[in-house]
């Protein structure tokens, strides 16, 4: 398979020698097997999430079998503590988990991208002000803050998405700021300014396209973080009570005494799904980042990808 992929990638590169931006993402996806597998998994999970109602063999709100029935030809993954088909729940859970992942990442990207763009492009006082706020946000531990926010603002899906987005925008902001700062000084941007382009036009047509691949890579990584955060929130009983997600399924298996019934089929699948989707999006995100910045591949410069905080306030760490 890999040879076919490689030739396809070479064909891609040959076809589009110019157009660096679109061709770039494509060449990474088709050129690196790990990234290709990751993208395939993310797309497959997204399709499952979209077509969930059509794919579920049973209803997830009705009891269809005995409690903790082992896997059989009728119920591929058995039933849970309420006699609900686990396989159907897994598909329905994909919908909520992927939605939270994508939407949460989108909110984080929007806030982080905007703050990073403004901060990096204008510099000066607004930069100092915005980066100070980012520094404070970075230090506050995310999960306790998430718990408190979810407890105070209520347990709807929309709230959870907003909370996740509002908490995780900081790393994106720092990353985009650093990139924008370097792009801003490039000759072609200065030339465009000399030709009379205003700040808005410069940002939209000259700076933003250059940081887009990085933003995409960061968003893909953020999807993993958001799905992870959702499992935490749901596991602590702060998820939307009317929906089923993978995090909620893990909680159900603990609360419902799946261990006592030795019902491995209720415990393993949801966690496995979360692990797979996070592995997949990590592979995609890091592949694009590595291709963008080969320095990331070596050394501890790549700490950020392992969700560790950058050393706060240290300019060299950007």
């Amino acid at each position, binding site marked *: 398979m890999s040879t076919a992929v490689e030739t396809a990638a070479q064909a891609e590169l040959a076809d589009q020698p110019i157009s660096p931006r679109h061709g770039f993402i494509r060449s990474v996806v088709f050129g690196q097997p790990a990234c290709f597998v990751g993208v395939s998994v993310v797309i497959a999970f997204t399709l499952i999430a979209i077509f969930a109602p059509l794919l579920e063999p049973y209803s997830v709100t009705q009891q269809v079998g005995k409690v903790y029935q082992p896997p059989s030809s009728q119920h591929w993954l058995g039933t849970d503590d309420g006699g609900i088909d686990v396989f159907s729940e897994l598909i329905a859970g994909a919908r909520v988990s992927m939605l939270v992942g994508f939407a949460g990442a989108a909110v984080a990207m929007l806030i982080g991208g905007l703050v990073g763009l403004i901060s990096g492009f204008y510099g000066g006082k607004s930069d100092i002000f915005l980066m100070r706020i980012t520094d404070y946000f970075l*230090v506050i531990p995310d999960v306790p803050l998430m718990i408190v926010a979810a407890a105070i603002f209520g347990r709807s899906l929309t709230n959870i998405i907003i909370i996740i987005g509002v908490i995780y925008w900081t790393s994106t902001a720092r990353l985009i700021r650093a990139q924008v700062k370097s792009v801003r000084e490039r000759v072609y941007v200065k030339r465009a300014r000399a030709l009379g382009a205003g700040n808005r036009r410069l940002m939209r047509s000259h700076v933003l396209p250059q940081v887009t691949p990085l933003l995409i890579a960061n968003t893909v990584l953020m999807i993993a973080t958001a799905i992870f955060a959702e499992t935490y929130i749901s*596991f602590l009983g702060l998820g939307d009570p009317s929906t089923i997600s993978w995090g909620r399924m893990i909680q159900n298996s603990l609360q419902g005494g799946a261990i006592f019934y030795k019902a491995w089929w209720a415990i393993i699948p949801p966690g496995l799904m979360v692990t797979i989707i996070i592995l997949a999006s990590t592979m995609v995100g890091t592949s694009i980042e590595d291709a963008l910045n080969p320095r990331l591949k070596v050394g501890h410069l790549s700490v950020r990808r392992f969700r560790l905080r950058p*050393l706060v306030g240290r300019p060299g760490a950007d």
Partner: protein
Amino acid sequence: MRGMDYIIKRTIFALITVFVTISLNFVLFRAVPGSAVSGLKCLHCTKQFKEAITKQYGLDKSKWEQYVVYLQRLAHGDLGTSIADNRPVWDDIKQPLLNTLPMIAVGTIVSILLGVLSGVIAAWRRGTKLVDTGNMWTALTFYAAPTQWIGLLVIFYVAIPLGLPAAGISSNTLGLFGSASEWAILQDRFNHLLLPALTLGIGLYGEYSLIVRSSMLETLGEDYVLTARAKGLPNWAIVWKHGLRNAMLPLITLIALSLGYIVAGAIVVEDVFSYPGIGLATIDALNKRDYPVLEGIFLVLTLAVIAANFVADILYFVFDPRVTT
């Protein structure tokens, strides 16, 4: 001395962060329109009763006055009073904190040992399919798996077959027949602490392993490692004395900085193992809607993380004096 400059700067930053956190804490818990009292519903909650409580908690004053009172009380170490049991919040969360600390300590040590060992071996045997690639995928998988799920698997596949305790902090039967000896109590405590700590360690080791590996790779390429090799030093001396010592530099600060994630892991791990620490206290406060306690826990956890960040900044300077900004 330029170093003092740096330390003063970091101290000021830490102090401002503490103040911002305290203010955020105040705003967050009072962001919902109406006060905690107006939402109260119970049989004896008459209008007079509500007014009395409103006065008792000072909710009839303006937000600014409340803020000033809040700061004054915090300065005296007063975190407020629990709604659920009417005890001072600090008394409610002191014991859970003390229970959590040894668990987190053991878990962190497990994760550092696992991470450093596997990272160093992977870096030394770099490029090999079995060791290097195998370790990378194992580490990535554990990094990607939700901690609470790892906990469930540990109960299922480790605790039950081995007969280790998987719930609580001590056995009910311990003091049943006469008082138990100190040693027996300690051993019982350790047995209960082992599995939660192990779960936390496994959940954290993945990222340490990957960081140690890449940091080691960089160090092993340095000239002094080549010199050490040319001197004919044995492999273990090159790796452990010359390589790891220098590769540890980023790791030391990264461990301190990852305290936020350790805290997050501890909360869910304690839930899985019903370990009566700060995580279980959080969940308990959530279920009882005991906001003062929740507020206190959030404040204590955040301050702990800020303190760890501050220590990391200072440590970084101690180990690498080139950092001065």
